């Protein structure tokens, strides 16, 4: 089976040159408790993942094709295919152009990706917001001594995906993505625009941005679906978001700050995320480095804006990097909701087994009073073990 996948993947590389890379993985997920809601899957699930990436450089041109596939055994809603990248880049000396489907990352903070807005989050993949759906866009950049300015035009909006009846980590009422509504009469065809400036001066890296377009986060409105069941209907507003992200890097310390101000979702609201990361190098005379992270999130949005779990939350974590040949790493962290005393513990560990095989373990435990926004997840403590083969 694996052999055939490889042979199929190698066809473009053999016939067109270029390079093929990526991974395929098997995943086992285990939920600690029986589900909270009727219809949700049981405690054990398996999945297969595949993400090949084909890259072809030709002079100043770069072509990229990067599809992603998840086949989920128990939950068909979670099985999905997404074109993460399908793009043409042209790189001149001090400017560049990109057209197609791509991914863009903004920001510096680890535990909330506040200013990062170009791509829709792939909520089916992770709850930490780091997996993104491919975004159709055109990008023009000018790279100068005084900084880089990038212009983005996005002709098509990607809706956020949510699990179905069978899915764990869902709300009691299903989110009916088929009935999604938009503030713009153009629906998902309403174009988005963004501009971003980045630069660094000495120890300071700074980014300033403005985004005008459809909010990546929907507001949930109560409604009924075609079967007459009570559901949540996503409603996507048009917003204007202005943001700043700054990092100061001094010896062992990283100081990070992100801030946004958003209009278009009820009253204008502001949010900040900031914190520090300190690294203790070569702990106890070993090769290992220990990173200590503390971050704080504040968000003063009102009821006409999409709900957030980051209204008044703290995050503390430690990152242990062994700096060994297998690149073994452990990240253990905890979110604390300062209003409700909900705690979320998470641990991520990974190590290479050989130069091509890697194993990852991820676990999350929801604890506390469950009066707040993540109460729906109180029976969804989980662990995921993933074995990946890179090529």
């Amino acid at each position, binding site marked *: 089976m694996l052999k055939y996948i490889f042979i199929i993947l190698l066809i473009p590389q053999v016939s067109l040159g270029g*390079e093929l*890379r990526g*991974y395929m993985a098997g995943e086992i997920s285990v939920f600690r408790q029986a589900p909270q809601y009727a219809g949700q899957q049981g405690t054990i699930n398996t999945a297969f993942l595949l993400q090949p990436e084909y*890259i072809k*450089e030709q002079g100043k041109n*770069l072509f*990229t094709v990067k599809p992603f596939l998840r086949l989920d055994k128990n939950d068909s809603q979670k099985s999905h295919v997404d074109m993460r990248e399908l793009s043409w*880049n042209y*790189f001149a*000396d*001090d400017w*560049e152009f990109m057209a197609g489907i791509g*991914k*863009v*990352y903004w920001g*510096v903070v680890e535990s909330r990706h506040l200013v990062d807005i170009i791509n829709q989050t792939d909520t089916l993949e992770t709850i930490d917001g*780091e997996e993104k759906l491919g975004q159709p866009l055109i990008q023009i*950049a000018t*790279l100068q001594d005084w900084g*880089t300015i990038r212009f983005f035009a996005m002709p098509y909006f990607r809706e956020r995906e949510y699990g179905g009846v069978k899915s764990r980590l869902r709300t009691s009422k299903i989110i009916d993505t088929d009935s999604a509504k938009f503030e713009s009469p153009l629906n998902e065809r309403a174009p988005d625009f963004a501009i971003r400036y*980045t630069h*660094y001066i000495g*120890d300071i*890296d700074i980014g300033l941005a403005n985004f005008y377009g459809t909010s990546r986060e929907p507001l949930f409105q109560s409604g009924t679906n075609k079967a007459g069941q009570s559901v949540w209907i996503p409603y996507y507003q048009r917003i204007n978001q202005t943001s700043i992200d700054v*990092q100061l*890097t*001094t*010896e*062992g*310390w*990283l100081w990070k700050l992100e801030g946004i101000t958003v209009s278009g979702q009820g009253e204008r609201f502001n949010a900040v995320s900031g914190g520090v990361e300190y*690294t203790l*190098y*070569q702990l106890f005379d070993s*090769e290992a*480095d220990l990173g200590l992270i503390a971050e704080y999130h504040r968000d003063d949005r009102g009821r006409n804006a999409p709900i957030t779990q980051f209204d008044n939350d703290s995050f503390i974590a430690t990152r242990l990097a062994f*700096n*060994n*040949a*297998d*690149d073994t790493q452990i990240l253990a962290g905890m979110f604390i909701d300062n209003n409700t005393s909900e705690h979320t513990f998470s641990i991520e560990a990974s190590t*290479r087994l*050989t*130069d*091509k095989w*890697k194993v990852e373990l991820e676990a999350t435990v929801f604890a506390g009073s469950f009066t707040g926004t993540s109460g729906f997840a109180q029976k969804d403590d989980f662990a995921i073990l993933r074995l*990946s083969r*890179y*090529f």
Partner: protein
Amino acid sequence: MNTKIKLLIGMFLLFSTTANALTLADIKNMEKSKTPEQIGLMIATEIKARDTGYESTTANLTMILKNAYNEESIRKIRNKTLEVPDASKGDKTLVIFDEPRDIAGTAFLTHSNILKADDQWLYLPDLKRVKRISSKSKSGSFMGSEFSYEDISSQEVAKYTYKYIAEEACDNNIKCLKVEAYPAYKYSGYTKEVLWIDAERFIPIKIDYYDRKKSLLKTQTFEGYHQYENKYWRPAIMVMKNHQNNKSTILKAENYVFKSGLKSSDFTKSKLKRLR
């Protein structure tokens, strides 16, 4: 007239370079008139002088990591270096990883500094994220190998103080100059490096590294030197042997290109995102 002046300048330059090139005999003559520290500095300056003007280089590197049980792990890296003529600053380097495959496309940009931490950015291709990272500790392992960031970073005269010890024969009957170098950077992983420098070509043949407890930590040997552009010597193989954990790393360099046309603007944070 113009041609004559040019000729004169040319002859002067030719004469001055010949006159400036340090030889073993010069060093022998100086042993009585100059201190070992002065001679050490002259040797270090000569090494650097003979290796300036390459502008930029690119090379493909393969690292073979061997643990105490001789199990191997392979790293493949594309390396780009930009020479920064200003002696108060270090060179700029870009490294892009091809293997192991889980980090393929990951890139490091380093603007090295002499006496303070380097400016360093990491590009994570899957997240499309450029991350400024702390590089206070240059002594940490590079990719789990026995080379530290310090070992592979640009060699600048002002990064050390020196002391000339003696002339000493290296393997293969190469006449060597034994020089001690003491790192000036306060977070260096070493208290001392002992260098054996080829007395004719002014290139390192062997280096012993002493840790912060002043014990012998590692020995680096250089093999298969080849001269490029009639000037620059580069080794085909470097071996770093750790005496304390019995691990070793072999670093092979191939496809060296000098004056590769890279510019300062190719070594910027924004250009990291172009790399694959």
